[in-house]
């Protein structure tokens, strides 16, 4: 790891990170959030990242649209497949969004096996309830509501309400 990356990642005060993202994108990042300072991460204007949320864009890019709200204690991690969140999306507290996965093709420690990453897309106007897990390969259509504690790892049609593990459509918005 380059010295400049180490300094940027570990020695930049959180308040400076918040000010830089506010100045660059107009995003309001809590100084108590742990948001990586990197060109891999882009915010749209008026985004809000609440305290104790961690956003990691070391392996891939994260593109967050305008007016996105990310509540407290979330974890966002992008693999090479990337992570996209559309405008006006709302991410509830304690939600994990991780666009990286491990292969388990051979018997043995999973941690020693190759990582895979298809990427995650979260459409415009999506509302993700508290405690959800959005896993690699998830493709959530516009205006979807994901009810609390649901697990999403595949395509969800737009304008639907989904629930459960795996998340299934329980209602179509109209």
């Amino acid at each position, binding site marked *: 790891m380059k010295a400049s990356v180490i300094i940027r990642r570990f020695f930049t005060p959180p308040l400076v990170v918040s000010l830089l993202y506010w100045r660059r994108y107009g995003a309001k990042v809590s100084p108590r959030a742990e948001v990586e300072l990197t060109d891999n991460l882009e915010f749209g204007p008026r985004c809000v990242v609440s305290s104790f949320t961690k956003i990691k864009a070391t392996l891939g890019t994260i593109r967050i649209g305008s007016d996105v709200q990310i509540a407290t204690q979330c974890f966002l991690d992008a693999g090479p497949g990337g992570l996209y969140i559309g405008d006006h999306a709302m991410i509830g507290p304690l939600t994990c969004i991780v666009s990286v996965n491990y292969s388990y093709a051979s018997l043995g420690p999973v941690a020693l096996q190759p990582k895979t990453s298809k990427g995650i897309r979260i459409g415009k106007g999506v509302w993700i309830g508290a405690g959800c897990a959005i896993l690699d390969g998830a493709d959530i259509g516009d205006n979807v509501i994901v*009810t609390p504690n649901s697990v999403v790892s595949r395509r969800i049609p737009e304008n639907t*309400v989904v*629930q459960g593990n795996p998340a299934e*459509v*329980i*209602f*179509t918005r*109209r």
Partner: protein
Amino acid sequence: MDAAEPMPVIEDDVRRILAATLKIPPETVAPDTSPDNVAAWDSMGHMRLVTAIELELGVRLTMEQVVAIDNFAALCRIVAAARGS
């Protein structure tokens, strides 16, 4: 027939679907069965109920009708109206 009473034509079907969706005994479903007296009839139960009604009875409710369902009798009336339209 009293306006508050469910319509007999579809009452049995709607009762069966409501009981199965909310996991309550069909014999306990009365005209005043509502979110106030069935714990499973919460906001998500309501959406599951509407989806089950639409799938099984082949109707399509408007959002105004969805939000107007406040008890079993109202559900039967709304389904009857949707079938007639």
